[in-house]
C-alpha cells in the first residue's frame, strides 16, 4: 500500500482529468465511438488498486479507464487505445472497452456485462496454484450482479477459497434502468453470505474507506482465507455513455451526488487532516492535467492502425 497520501490523490486526479479531457474531446467530435465515463467513481478503482502489486491481476468491464489508470497502465498507450490508435496498448484493436497489460496484471476490459467475473476467478485459480500469495480482482457493476455469471463466480470462489476480490461498483444504474427496478433487494453485498463468503457495503466515494475494506479483503485472500465481495456505493456522474440525455434521473439527484465528490472529499482530508498545503496540491493538479493533455495530444496525433493488420494475430504461434 502507498504510504504517500498524495500518491492516492494523484491517481484520483489522473482519472478525473482523463475523463474530463476525453469528454471534452468527445464534445469536440474528436473521439470515435462511445465513451463510458468513470467520472464520480474514482475512489473505487484507486482505493482497491492501492493494495495491489503488479503480480496481482484485475479484470475490468466496459467502464474500465479508472481501473487501468489505478492499476498503473501507462497513460499514453492507454489513452491512444481509447481512440483506437496504432500506438494504443493493444495497437488500437481493443478500443474504448478493451485495454490490457499483462506486465502490470491488467487482464482486460469486456464488452459483455458480467463476462469478466469467471475470468477473474480463473486468474485467482492460477494464483492459488502458484501459491505465491497473489490475488485477483474483478471489477463489475451493479447491473452485472444480475447476470448468471455472478452467482456461479461467488459460489466457485467460496467453495475453492479462491484469492479473489469481487468489487461491485454500485452506481445505481445499468444503462438507463435504475437498479431498484431490477432487484428484489438493493444491497448487492448481502448476496455474499448465502454463497458462503464475506460481503461488505462500503462508501464508494470515500477512498480511504474503500482502501481499508479492500486491504482487509486482499489480506484475507493472500492468507488463503478466500474471497470477499465488496459493494462500493457510488454514482456515475455522466450518462451511460457521453451524449446520453439522462432522462431517467433528475438533475437534483446528480447534484446531490456531486456534493459527495470523492476527489473533493479526499482533497479536504489532505488539507484538513494531513496538513498538506494547498499549493502542493494545486501543483500536482496542474502537473496531472498537463500529463493527461499530453497523452490526449499523443493519441490524437497518432495514426490509425493499418486496416490490413486486422488479418493478423487471429491465432498465436
Amino acid at each position, binding site marked *: 500500500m502507498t504510504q504517500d497520501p498524495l500518491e492516492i490523490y494523484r491517481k484520483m486526479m489522473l482519472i478525473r482529468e482523463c475523463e474530463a479531457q476525453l469528454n471534452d474531446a468527445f464534445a469536440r467530435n474528436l473521439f470515435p465511438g462511445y465513451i463510458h465515463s468513470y467520472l464520480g467513481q474514482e475512489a473505487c478503482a484507486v482505493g482497491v488498486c492501492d493494495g495491489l502489486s503488479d503480480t496481482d491481476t484485475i479484470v475490468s468491464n466496459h467502464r474500465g479507464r479508472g481501473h487501468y489508470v489505478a492499476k498503473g497502465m501507462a497513460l499514453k498507450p492507454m489513452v491512444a487505445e481509447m481512440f483506437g490508435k496504432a500506438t494504443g496498448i493493444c495497437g488500437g484493436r*481493443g478500443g474504448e472497452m478493451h485495454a490490457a497489460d499483462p506486465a502490470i496484471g491488467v487482464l482486460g476490459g469486456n464488452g*459483455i456485462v458480467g463476462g469478466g467475473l469467471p475470468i477473474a476467478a480463473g486468474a485467482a485459480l492460477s494464483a492459488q496454484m502458484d501459491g505465491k500469495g497473489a490475488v485477483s480482482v474483478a471489477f463489475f457493476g451493479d447491473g*452485472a450482479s444480475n447476470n448468471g455469471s455472478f452467482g456461479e463466480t461467488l459460489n466457485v470462489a467460496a467453495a475453492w477459497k479462491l484469492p479473489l476480490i469481487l468489487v461491485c461498483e454500485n452506481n445505481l444504474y445499468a444503462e*438507463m434502468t435504475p437498479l431498484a427496478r431490477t432487484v428484489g433487494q438493493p444491497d448487492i453485498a448481502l448476496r455474499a453470505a448465502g454463497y458462503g463468503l464475506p460481503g461488505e457495503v462500503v462508501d464508494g466515494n470515500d477512498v480511504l474507506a474503500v482502501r481499508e475494506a479492500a486491504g482487509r479483503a486482499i489480506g484475507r485472500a493472500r492468507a488463503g482465507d478466500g474471497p470477499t465481495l465488496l459493494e462500493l456505493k457510488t454514482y456515475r456522474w455522466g450518462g451511460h455513455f457521453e451524449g446520453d440525455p439522462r432522462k431517467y434521473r433528475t438533475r437534483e439527484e446528480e447534484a446531490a451526488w456531486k456534493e459527495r465528490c470523492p476527489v473533493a472529499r479526499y482533497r479536504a482530508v489532505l488539507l484538513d487532516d494531513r496538513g498538506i498545503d494547498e499549493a502542493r496540491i494545486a501543483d500536482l493538479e496542474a502537473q496531472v492535467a498537463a500529463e493527461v493533455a499530453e497523452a490526449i495530444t499523443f493519441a490524437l496525433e497518432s495514426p490509425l492502425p493499418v486496416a490490413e493488420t486486422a488479418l493478423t494475430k487471429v491465432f498465436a504461434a
Partner: protein
Amino acid sequence: MATKTYCWAIVDAMREEMERDETVFLIGEDVGAPEGAFGASRGLQKTFGPSRVRDTPISEEIIVGLGVGAAMTGRRPIVEIMFIDFLGLCLDQIANQAAKTHYIYDGMFKMPLVIRTSSAVEMGIGPHHSQSWEAIVGHIPGLKVVMPSTPRDAKGLLKSAIRDNNPVVFIEHIALHRLKEEIEDEELLIPIGKADVKRQGRDVTVVASGLMVARALAAAKTLAKDGIEVEVVDPRTISPIDYDTIVDSVRKTNRALVVTSSHKQFGFGSEVAAEVQERAFFDLDQPVKRLSPPFTPAPFGKQFDDYLNPNTDAIVAAVHELVA
C-alpha cells in the same frame, strides 16, 4: 402511405400487435421506461403500462426463459436481447428450450415467442458488438430466423413473427434503424419463409441479406451501366430459406453470388452455396461465389470495419469475375 424509419416500423408492428392481442407483451433491458436502447420501443410502456412493457435486469438467460414459460402458458411474448453478440448467454433457452418444446411434448405446447435482437456489425463498436450470428440460430431445428433489410419488411415480418406459433429469432440491424421507406397504412403481414426479389435481372443472381441488400442493389445499378443485369434476391428469412425463389433465379441467370455480413465459414454463404449447387448444378456456369468478412474477430474502429466487410465495389468486382 407514410414514410417510416426501420426503427419506427418495428415500434409500429409491436404497437399494432399489442393493440390487437392482449396476450402480446414485451420485456428486455431498457425496453420499458427508457423506451429501448435504440428507441425501438418508444411510447409502448406509456400506452400499455409497466406490466406489459417491462425492463429486465441484465440477465439474458432468464429474459429468454421468461418468454419460453410465458409462451407455454398462453401468452405471446416478445423478448429483446440487445445485441446478437449476447447469444452465448441465452442460447440454451433458445436452442434447447424454445426450439424444442413443441416437438418434445408432441405438440402439446405452442411456442409463440419472438426473440428480437440486433446486429451492429460494421458500426465500429469492437469485437463484442460486431457479429452477425444468424448462422448459429439457423443451425437449430425448430427455430425460424428472420433478418429484414428494409422498414417495410421489418414491419411486415415482425407482425407475422408475433402471430407465429413458433419461436422466431428476429434480427434487426442498428445501422438500418434510420433507413426510411413508404409503408402502407393498411395491415401489413409479410410471410416468414418467402424471399423477395428486390431487383430483376438476367445475368447474375446476387443473394444478399441484411446490410448487404442495399449494397447489392447499388452494385446492380453500377453493373447495369456495363450491361450486366443483376437479379438481387433478399431471402429475408434465414431459416427456413426460400430456396425455390433463389434456385428459380439461378436457373435463369446461371451464376450466383452470396453476400453476407457473417463469416463464410459455416455461415449463410456456405449454406446457400451448398444448396444451390446441389439443386442447380447443371444450370451453373460458374461455381457459386461467396463474399464475406474474413475469418477474424472484428476489431474496434470504422477503418477496420470498412476494410473487413464487403462493400459495393467488392460486389461489383465479384460479379465481374462471375461473368468473365
